[in-house]
């Protein structure tokens, strides 16, 4: 133990004995540019002198063919001449030794007479892994907890005499969701960058993430991070000052900033997307978050924490859930039609098969919800304590199905929808 402590202290005291960190200031051509003809040179401009390695700069086309000649140093710039490039998308992968042997690395893309691909789609990037699915699931859970807990409080419990302790617990639950959202967002951004950079973790720590931050996903990450930090601050002030009026802006902001996922996902970027698909995706995510998060909060906090509110909370939530389910189904059906134009895509494409599982789970949750709405709600007036306890367990079961829906949704968001068929010729064109 003492030896470990000593090693830790020495490592902290002399961390730079084997490393010094150079930072990339800018590149030529710049990240993500569309060029009219291939560049004659690639340039990396650093804040300090660096040394080149074999293969310091690689310019790769869509099938991995390398076009860069050996790199050389010009002051604080690493330069490599490039063979003539044809029309297409290209990936630049670079690495250099900065002071005292530390390797810094990065990746960016450009296009010759075509738009540059997103850096997450750079040549060599492998796509989402199981870890990325799990992190996205955590992200969804965090969003659902924040939005759902706040939605339950500001919509279903509005006007009711909410005990102070329950009030605090709801705020703490929403705050916990915001913290999970922030952490999961950082992890998701890191994993996506790690995949694009294709580096082992030790080198990834010193990898340049600027090109990833410039993508739609990177911008959404920045906006959502700032938004949820603000939501967290509002929730903290609501808890500290006993100000329930701060919960409404926190709810609106969290719902608004959850749109970052829609703004950077398939429904905003893939061919066939429009502002309508992005809005539909946002409505889908928002309504599902209020539904699943609200249900979980009602079971976890209201059902056992404030038994006197159970009946009224249940009835109010049941009414709200009807609207939410209509929104989830409406937006989801529209998006499915846009993404999968043919019915057989549902079982022939991997995206369609994941969607089928999600639809199955949603139907299961809907049937469960319908039982609560049409059978349980009318019986609540004459219900005894034992009945209410059993209903609590049933609601917990419905919430767990909702959590499973979010897991499948995470896999679905990370999956690639099938390419859209080419547009059929118009009548005028045929004539």
């Amino acid at each position, binding site marked *: 133990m003492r030896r470990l402590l000593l090693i830790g202290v020495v490592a902290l005291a002399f961390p730079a004995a084997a490393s010094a960190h150079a930072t990339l200031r800018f590149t030529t051509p710049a990240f993500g540019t569309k060029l009219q003809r291939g560049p004659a040179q690639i340039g990396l401009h650093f804040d300090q002198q660096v040394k080149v390695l074999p293969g310091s700069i690689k310019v790769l086309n869509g099938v991995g063919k390398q076009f860069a000649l050996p790199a050389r140093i010009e002051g604080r710039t690493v330069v490599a001449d490039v063979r003539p490039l044809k029309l297409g998308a290209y990936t630049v992968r670079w690495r250099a030794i900065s002071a005292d042997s530390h390797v810094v690395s990065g990746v960016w893309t450009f296009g010759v007479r075509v738009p540059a691909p997103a850096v997450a789609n750079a040549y060599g990037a492998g796509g989402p892994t199981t870890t990325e699915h799990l992190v996205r699931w955590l992200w969804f859970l965090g969003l659902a907890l924040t939005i759902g807990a706040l939605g339950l409080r500001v919509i279903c419990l509005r006007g009711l005499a909410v005990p102070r302790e329950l009030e605090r617990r709801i705020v703490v639950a929403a705050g916990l969701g915001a913290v999970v959202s922030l952490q999961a967002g950082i992890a998701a951004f890191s994993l996506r960058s790690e995949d694009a950079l294709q580096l082992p973790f030790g080198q990834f720590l010193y990898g340049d993430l600027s090109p990833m931050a410039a993508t739609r996903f990177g911008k959404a990450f920045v906006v959502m*991070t700032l938004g949820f930090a603000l939501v967290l601050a509002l929730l903290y002030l609501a808890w500290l000052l006993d100000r329930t009026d701060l919960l409404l802006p926190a709810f609106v902001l969290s719902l608004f900033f959850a749109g970052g996922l829609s703004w950077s996902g398939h429904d905003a970027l893939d061919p066939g997307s429009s502002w309508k698909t992005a809005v539909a995706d946002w409505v889908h995510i928002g309504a599902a978050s209020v539904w699943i998060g609200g249900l979980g909060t009602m079971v976890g906090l209201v059902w056992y924490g404030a038994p006197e509110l159970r009946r009224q909370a249940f009835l109010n939530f049941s009414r709200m859930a009807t609207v939410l389910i209509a929104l989830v189904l409406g937006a989801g059906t529209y998006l499915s039609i846009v993404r999968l134009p043919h019915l057989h895509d549902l079982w022939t494409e991997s995206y369609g098969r994941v969607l089928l599982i999600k639809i199955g789970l949603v139907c299961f949750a809907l049937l469960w919800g319908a039982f609560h709405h049409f059978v349980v709600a009318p019986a609540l007036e004459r219900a005894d304590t034992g009945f209410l306890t059993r209903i609590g367990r049933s609601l917990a079961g419905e919430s767990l199905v909702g959590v499973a829906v979010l897991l499948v949704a995470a896999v679905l968001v990370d999956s690639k929808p099938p390419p859209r068929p080419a547009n059929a010729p118009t009548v005028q064109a045929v004539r």
Partner: protein
Amino acid sequence: MLPHAEMVHWAFAAGILLVGLCLLSEAIVGQEVWQMRPWRKYLWPGIAFGMGVLLWPVMAFFTNSSIHMYAHGSWAEVLMLAGGAELGLVRGRLHSPLWRLTWPLAFAVTGIAFIVHEQNPWFFARSAFLHHLLGWTFLLGALIPLALAWRPRSAALQTCFALTIVAVSVMLFTDRDVAPIFGHLSELAGPQHR
């Protein structure tokens, strides 16, 4: 367009100086006199919490390396936690004095993050030297709030705590991107500027 790194350091140095001066004033005049105006007890914990919130944009916008992003993110979190816990205690929302242990935690996390994310040697340039010095000041300084958690009325410990924070702000004010330290500047760092 992002501001230069040292300008961000200076902005946070101003906030930290304010916190340090409040703490020093409280240590000199005593808690009873300091809290004669009710708002004063919320002043420095509020500034600390606010700086934690403001560190999130720093985390999100400065992505020139993963390790910088994680360092800034960890500061944002521990500063919000420690400032928030202190506000909760003075407001009467929290009662356990163990919440004051969030300050030594914040100091320790901040110190380690400073040292780990600065990858240049001590005498590489002024900013590298100050990052190492700040890291060790925070790490060793964590002992002071740790002791304060058990001896909250100790004027000597309160003064030490305040002076440590003032010293941290002075270090941040003297931080510049590429500038010599004791007349030395590594040729690898490039020419002095600004």
